């Protein structure tokens, strides 16, 4: 058959019926993410949260390059100083600059938060997608999720840190060892909410026509999940990600605060707060900065998560 279709009979006299013409939108089409951004921008708390969070991360990772003091530099002659121009947050009992330690601690805390969140997100999405997509795995995986939700998490995390600290320290060195341990401890104990949400969304998604269409042209399960399912459950995963960072930072700080986190010479925000409580009578101001850093980071991450949830929810969007 040739490509050139026969010309339709010319009917110049008859005007097309107005109702039969497809209405052409005047504005160019908008992508989904543009709508999301528009909604997100209107949420003041979320915008403020995003700005503060980015500022904190920049300060913590770029700040040390511009700051003359090393976090571990001991200057015993200038110990226990109050705030001054040289040391805006004072110095600790060994004369280490508190601002430098706060930034170094922030690097660890934020890295732990992000890495643990990624691990929890990976586990949660994996379990959620598998449980939602493969009917046979559903019962088993959801029982597993219920079981994990019934575990007393903080006590178990404390026990895990106690049990594996020395082994991992021996294998990877004291800093990397405890980093891996805490990230894994937080990751394997916080994937359950993500898994549940993702499973619910996948279950609903599986019944839609485009999945049937993709199936009918012979899409394999792997490609179906990667190409059609995952992009569509991205919004709950993104919300879980921001809330997960907040959760992971709090958990890490709590572990460090209980003395079962990072070693003393390796600052994190929780550890700094814990160390400062020993000098509560003499230098109460030392408690303030690490605590404020934790609170501000978590608060902004929570606001960001709230705003994202609203922006990504099509029922709220455009209202």
């Amino acid at each position: 058959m040739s490509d050139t279709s026969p010309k339709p009979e010319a009917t110049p006299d008859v005007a097309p019926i107005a109702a039969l013409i497809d209405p052409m939108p005047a504005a160019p089409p908008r992508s989904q993410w543009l709508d999301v951004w528009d909604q997100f921008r209107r949420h003041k708390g979320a915008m403020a949260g995003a700005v503060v969070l980015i500022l904190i991360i920049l300060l913590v990772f770029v700040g040390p390059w511009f700051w003359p003091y090393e976090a571990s530099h001991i200057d015993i002659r200038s110990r226990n100083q109050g705030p001054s121009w040289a040391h805006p947050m004072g110095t600790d009992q060994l004369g280490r600059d508190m601002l430098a330690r706060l930034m170094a601690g922030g690097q660890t805390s934020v890295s732990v938060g992000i890495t643990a969140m990624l691990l929890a997100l990976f586990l949660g999405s994996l379990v959620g997608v598998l449980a939602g997509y493969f009917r046979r795995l559903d019962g088993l995986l959801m029982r597993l999720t219920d079981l994990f939700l019934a575990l007393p998490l903080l006590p178990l995390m404390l026990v895990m840190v106690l049990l594996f600290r020395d082994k991992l320290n021996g294998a990877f060195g004291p800093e990397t060892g405890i980093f891996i341990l805490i990230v894994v401890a937080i990751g394997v104990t916080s994937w359950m909410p993500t898994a549940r949400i993702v499973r619910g969304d996948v279950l609903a998604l599986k019944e839609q026509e485009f999945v049937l269409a993709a199936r009918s042209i012979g899409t394999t399960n792997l490609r179906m999940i990667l190409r059609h399912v995952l992009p569509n459950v991205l919004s709950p995963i993104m919300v879980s990600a921001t809330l997960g960072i907040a959760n992971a930072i709090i958990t890490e700080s709590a572990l460090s605060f209980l003395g079962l986190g990072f070693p003393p010479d390796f600052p994190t925000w929780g550890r700094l707060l814990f160390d400062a409580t020993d000098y509560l009578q003499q230098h109460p101001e030392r408690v303030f900065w690490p605590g404020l850093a934790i609170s501000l980071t978590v608060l902004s991450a929570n606001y960001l998560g709230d705003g994202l949830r609203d922006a990504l929810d099509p029922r709220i969007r455009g209202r």
Partner: protein
Amino acid sequence: MLTFTIRRLVIAIPTLLFISLAIFLLLELAPGDPMAQVPLTVPPEVKAKMREALGLGEPVYIRFFKWIIQFFWVEPQVLIDNLLGTGFADGKLRILSWQTRSPVMDIVAQRLPQTLTVVGLSYVLGVLLAMPIGIYSAYRQYSFFDQIGTFISMVGYSVPTFFTGVLLIVIFSVTLGWFPSIYDTMHQVNDWDSLVIQIKQMIMPVSVLALYNAAQISRFMRASMLDNLNQDYVRTARAKGLSEKVVVLIHVLRNSMIPVVTVIALGVPQVFGGAIITEQVFKVNGLGHLLIGAIEANDLPMVQTLTFIFAVLIVLFNLIADVLYSLLDPRIRYE
């Protein structure tokens, strides 16, 4: 309804068994040796005997089975004995702590009241505080009160208890000297003055936990009220000419309480877990403090039992939440 409750109870048993097995196996990997404190001059034979006395000589599954028997069979008998003065548990071996060589459950029973007074009171206060805030915030959505309330609850939810606790200590103990920073468990209340002291030492730990709980619950309360305020039945109630008070406080509130009650029930075990940190901040001599001490001293029977008690609390309150949900909402009937 009854069948549902019974079925859930039956499902809870394997869950609990599995959790106890998981905790047991995790602790099995513990590197610490309970004999580490014994002097080196003690000959190895004697050490082996001492190990056996601690119940360490036998294979894992026998020890697990023994622990299960002790926890689920012997300890309840001890409880009945103490309550009724009977002698069921005479001569039976109980779970012994390696630190003190005394039964774990006796120590738990000593520590439980401290945790319950502080945690329980703070939870009740938190709920009482959260409900009016949540209701009013939702009723006047986007008003000044709502903006402030939402912001404070977000802050209360984000700021960790170990920071609020330490901050309160700095302000009220170190600077102002109003309240003691350490909770005195031995303090006995027998007259007015000692009651005042007791209240003073309870104010800070209770308010820290209450603030955190109130922040979480008021967010749920507000969201739940908002969901209901736009429903058709509210318009109907108003159209009937009912007063605004009746509409909001009876019609809307009752329906909004359904999810909130389950959240409150589900939050109870979490509060026990979170209290570990608050107890550590204020040196409250409760269950959390006991757990941290046991972990640091490598007292495995104590850690095992305490962790399992926390697990039992979680499973129990999950069950309570499910049952409450179906009781409160007649549309939901699990059969």
